[in-house]
């Protein structure tokens, strides 16, 4: 127990300075945003794009005089894609770094773990990427919001497209955690409702998230000869998957192929021409799909600064910072409870149009963007999206009763 002594001395020191400093963090201190993203491993690129989106928004706002005269500041933590790490990070951000608001989350598994803890932390959380329907469904609570679309919304849209293709026998390849399994579950439910004669095959493939070798899964699906395949593999995994699928001739088969998060620009720029033409790709936000002033300004500022078009993760993070700006200004306070109440039902002009957090479940009613991979955009080094369809958020969202959310 000897070691604890200097440690405790240090703690006391920190405590004393902390207490003495307390009245000082009044009005000229920055407002702190705590962000939690994946910054290491195969999906680390998503965290990088989110950080860029946040930084762009913060710099714009601070240049413009900040929020209620105070600057914004971000502190970012790595979730490593693990719920336990993210929960510890959230506690550190709130109690140690004095973050006023939280945002982020890239993984459904992480979201399912962290969201139930939010009422203890008493700070609002805007989820900008993680898509499990549960956190704006049966796990919903007063502090948790989501600005990006969720699996239920995206799969409803996917089922509409799948129904139009006329393919009858469907299977899936998805990561072996909440996201992959829930994507298949919600896709199947929506597809079956609209087209009772489709067959949902029992031959499905769920490789481990972060698996390097997808060959056995690709071969397995080709051997089963489905008419359509729903692929919810994402991140670095998706890059590996597409390269291996190319080698195995997966895309030359007579199948409809739908990538549920395939139009993430992180993935498209890594793949370039290796992403085949003519497959269905979805994204939460396509930078070229919105003809409004906010989007024009955002996309050109983003490309100027970082040299690449913004991904949906960058857009979600950027929009969340502006959502907090608006909420803090209308609440006139950074108090966690007040902000959480203000966000409910609040709408704002985001790059993907005017969006609102529905009061009943705190889910933003945003529609997914689906398109077919088209010719290369040589300037940006990525595939374009042809036949782009921006779904109406209201039409693809579950009703409050269906979500099972009770606030």
């Amino acid at each position, binding site marked *: *127990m*000897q*070691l*604890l*002594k200097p*440690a*405790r001395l240090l*703690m*006391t020191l*920190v*405590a004393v300075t*902390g207490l003495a400093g307390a009245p000082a963090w009044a009005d000229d201190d920055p407002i702190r945003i705590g962000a939690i993203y994946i*910054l*290491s491993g195969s999906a680390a690129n998503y965290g990088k794009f989110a950080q860029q989106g946040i930084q762009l928004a913060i710099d714009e706002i601070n240049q413009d005089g900040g929020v209620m005269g105070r600057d914004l500041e971000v502190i970012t933590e*790595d979730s490593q894609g*693990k*719920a*336990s790490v993210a*929960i*510890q990070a959230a*506690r*550190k951000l709130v*109690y*140690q770094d004095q973050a006023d608001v939280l945002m982020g989350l890239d993984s*459904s*598994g992480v979201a*399912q*773990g962290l*969201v*139930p*803890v939010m009422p*203890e932390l008493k700070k609002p959380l805007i989820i900008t990427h993680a898509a499990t329907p549960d956190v704006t469904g049966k*796990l919903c609570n007063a502090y948790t919001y989501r600005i990006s679309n969720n699996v239920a919304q995206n799969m409803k849209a996917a089922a509409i497209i799948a129904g139009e293709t006329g393919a009858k026998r469907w299977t899936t390849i998805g990561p*072996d*955690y*909440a996201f992959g*399994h829930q994507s298949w579950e919600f896709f199947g439910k929506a597809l079956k409702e609209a087209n009772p004669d489709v067959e949902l095959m029992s031959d499905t493939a769920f490789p*481990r*998230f972060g698996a390097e070798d997808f060959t056995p899964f690709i071969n397995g699906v080709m051997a089963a000869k489905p008419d359509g395949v729903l692929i919810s593999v994402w991140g670095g995994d998706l890059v590996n998957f597409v390269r291996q699928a190319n080698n195995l001739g997966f895309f030359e088969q007579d199948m409809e192929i739908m990538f549920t998060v395939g139009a993430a620009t992180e993935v498209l720029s890594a793949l370039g021409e290796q992403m085949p033409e003519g497959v269905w790709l979805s994204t939460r936000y396509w930078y070229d799909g919105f003809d409004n002033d906010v989007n024009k300004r955002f996309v050109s500022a983003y490309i100027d600064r970082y040299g690449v078009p913004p991904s949906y993760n960058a857009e979600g993070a950027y929009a969340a910072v502006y959502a907090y700006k608006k909420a803090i200004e209308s609440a006139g306070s950074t108090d966690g409870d007040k902000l959480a109440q203000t966000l409910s039902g609040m709408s704002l002009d985001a790059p993907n149009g005017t969006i609102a957090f529905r009061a009943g479940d705190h889910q933003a009613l945003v529609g997914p963007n689906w398109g077919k991979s088209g010719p290369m955009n040589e300037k940006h080094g990525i595939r374009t999206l042809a036949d782009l369809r921006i779904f109406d958020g209201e039409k693809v969202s579950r009703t409050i009763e269906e979500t099972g959310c009770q606030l």
Partner: protein
Amino acid sequence: MKQTILLGALLVALIGLVALPWFAPYFYIFIVTEILIMGLFAASFNLVFGYTGMLSFGHAAFFGVGCYATAMTLLHLKWPFLYCLVLSVGAGALLALVIGFFSVRLNEVYFAMLTLAFGMMVFSVAHHWRSVTNGSDGIAGFTLGDFGLGLDLTLGNPAVYYHVVLVFVVVAAAVLYLIGRSSFGMILQAIRQNPERVAFCGLNVRSYRLAAFTLGGAFAGLAGGLMAPFLRVASPEMLHWSTSAEPVLMSILGGTGYFLGPFVGSAMFILLETWITSITQAWMLFLGIVLALMVMFFRRGLLGTFLDWWLERK
């Protein structure tokens, strides 16, 4: 004289721990809660390693099973917390009894490999049995109800939970300490030093090793049970061999020769992790350097080296 000073230092440390929520920054309640739980985990490992001389690489299996037991009972059955903990201890002990039955007959590297293999089997089950363990997402979203025994405690309050953990860890540590000092504990230490000789004395070495292994599993199960409400999730990573490595590292950092060594190691490990990760992401690199230095120059660990030096000083 030195005994008195040691006892006094221990008492001061204990008072400091009890009073912690009133003087330390709020965040350190979480840090010290984690230190205490991981310290108990490491101490349970040290009963197997430091006392009995069996290097197990599968100790996380018992810790993780304890964590799952509490998390799943809280989620599905909503039992009072105390009963969940009893279940965790039982689950840890039972699993250790089964794995130990096959493992303790082997020695050295064969024992280490066998425990590693069993540990990874348990990990695989948790990772793949999605309908029961929820696969790689783990068990989350459970709520804390009553403590049990009619005590009115708000377990969701981190300061309250810290004190609950402190009481459990201190009592468990005291029991572990007494086990180590008992004639049973003496036999375990004799087995570490010379198993043949113990066997020639007419004692069944294998049963003693199995008993030590099972006891270690029971206390690891308790540590796991305490971890579930703290982390708010029971995930397969807690059963992974890399989690099994943590008590090994903690025991070596603190020193395996003294009872409190693993607790000191746990404090070093978690404080270093917290401080270094706030500066750089490459904390494992620094841990590697610290560990290499410790093994080269302070083989008895931080507490061990200090106490050896201090107790021998005239």
